[in-house]
């Protein structure tokens, strides 16, 4: 069915051409450029993509059904496993939703630690994006430099929580362990080092002519498309829309912090191209470091856990809480029937939305450019499938 439709289209365009058929290629599920287990069915006319259909579901782990059977505290490890590269932010969203429902006051120190770890996690996540995106476009070395810095963050998280990837550190009512002064000093040192590193990354990759040629004017997602699909996070900001939940709908202590929202301006090409999205993420890292520095200055002494009853029961009702994660907005919709386990937990993932934008961008691109587009969207399949 598909092939005939396309055939007529091809023939309709150019009647004198020899009748040709489209070639179907499976990109993934085990393809290094798809960042996980995403399968994209591509129909190609020689090197040019005429249609791309993403197939998802290879990493489906029944997050929502699991949540209906396990108590509120037990759900936290499952939240970690959604976006495994930004586990702290995933936990924070869930905890904020539950806390809002039971009306718990979180101690100031815990709030500062939470913001600090989630911003550190954002830096770690964007570092990974920087590294893997460079690999997608054929540069291997930046990946190693990025991981060297990322390791510092992971090591710190390991000392704080005991795990390197899936932390279970942000708890309902506060955080698990207290942060030590020595660790705060290390974060400060890391921030100072990171400033220089970011400059290095710009020289090494961002301003490199070959990189610019590969990314500028490629995979343009304009503002209208972003609005139509409901894109959020760096994709939306890369298209020139100034929208950041941390600023526009502040949660936790973001209201008191001073930072800017980086927006894509089309410096090297068109607004909303791959280079803009890359640039937004790089600038976001700088803003995150700014936030961390303010937290280091403002952190207060005090308890780290608020008053939460041992057997957690939520009042009857429902709540929707959204937070800004490294990859976009994450929303938790929790419905409670007054019992120990939630009646329903629904997670709105930004990566799923961004995956659905791929078929719209793909037609007309070269295959290599499509790889660059997938990389710049920066999807984590754990969050897409949940």
């Amino acid at each position, binding site marked *: 069915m598909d092939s005939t439709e396309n055939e007529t289209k091809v023939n309709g365009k150019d009647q004198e051409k020899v009748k040709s058929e489209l070639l179907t290629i499976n990109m993934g599920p085990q393809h290094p450029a798809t960042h996980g287990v995403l399968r994209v069915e591509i129909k190609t006319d020689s090197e040019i993509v005429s249609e791309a259909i993403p197939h998802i579901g290879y990493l489906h782990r029944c997050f929502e059904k699991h949540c209906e059977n396990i108590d509120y505290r037990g759900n936290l490890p499952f939240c970690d496993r959604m976006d495994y590269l930004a586990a702290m932010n995933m936990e924070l969203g869930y905890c904020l939703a539950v806390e809002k429902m039971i009306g718990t006051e979180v101690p100031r120190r815990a709030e500062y630690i939470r913001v600090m770890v989630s911003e550190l996690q954002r830096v770690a996540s964007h570092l990974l994006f920087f590294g893997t995106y460079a690999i997608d476009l054929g540069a291997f070395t930046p990946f190693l430099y990025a991981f060297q810095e990322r390791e510092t963050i992971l090591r710190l998280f390991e000392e704080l929580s*005991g795990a390197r990837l899936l932390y279970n550190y942000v708890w309902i009512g506060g955080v698990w362990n207290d942060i030590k002064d020595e660790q705060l000093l290390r974060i400060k040192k890391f921030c100072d080092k990171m400033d220089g590193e970011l400059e290095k990354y710009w020289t090494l990759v961002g301003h490199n002519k070959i990189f610019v040629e590969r990314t500028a004017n490629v995979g343009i997602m304009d503002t209208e498309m972003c609005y139509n699909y409901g894109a959020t996070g760096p994709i939306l900001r890369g298209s020139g829309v100034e929208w950041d939940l941390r600023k526009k709908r502040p949660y936790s202590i973001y209201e008191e912090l001073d930072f800017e929202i980086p927006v894509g301006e089309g410096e090297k090409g068109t607004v909303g191209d791959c280079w803009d999205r890359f640039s937004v993420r790089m600038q976001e890292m700088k803003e995150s470091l700014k936030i961390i520095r303010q937290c280091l200055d403002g952190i207060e002494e005090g308890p780290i856990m608020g008053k939460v009853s041992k057997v957690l029961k939520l009042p009857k009702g429902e709540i929707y809480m959204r937070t800004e994660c490294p990859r976009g907005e994450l929303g938790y919709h929790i419905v409670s029937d007054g019992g120990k386990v939630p009646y329903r937990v629904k997670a709105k993932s930004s990566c799923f939305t961004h995956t659905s934008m791929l078929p719209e961008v793909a037609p007309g691109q070269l295959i290599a450019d499509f790889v660059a587009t997938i990389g710049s969207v920066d999807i984590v399949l754990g969050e897409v499938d949940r």
Partner: protein
Amino acid sequence: MNKQPEELTLKKYFQNIWNGIKTTVKGMSITLRYVYSEKSVSIEYPEVREVLPEGTRSRLFNDTQNCISCDQCAVACPVDCIYIASKPRPKDAEKIKTSNGTPIRRELTQYTIDTSLCCYCGLCTTVCPTESLTHTSDHEYASYTIDQMKYDYLDPEVVAWRDRIVK
């Protein structure tokens, strides 16, 4: 979808090439600096072993002498990987206590953890009232079959780990 490229003049053509060379050389200079002046950060794993920080959440260990069979770990576990069974101690038996002074009223008859199911979230250790169940930093315990991943903590062989992995 792509924008039409701007008209290419001869000047622009050479400028592009020059820019390409200039920016690449700049990048290469950074790489060269790493080659000669930066210390290597890689750890060659089997020969050199990194000391894991205190509180690393790795293999679970239950010191059964201190366990009061309260079942709280099994309740807290989100993946139900802890199998615990106990029976009341006879009334005339000698009174025993854990190391922190909690009297032991029940006798543990089974304490098995299926580590192939465990998600290392740490929820079970935080609810343990006597701190008998702890995460150790032992992480090298791959096995050939899935049955070998089940550890019975009443087994004398497993109890003997105490000296090896718990400090």
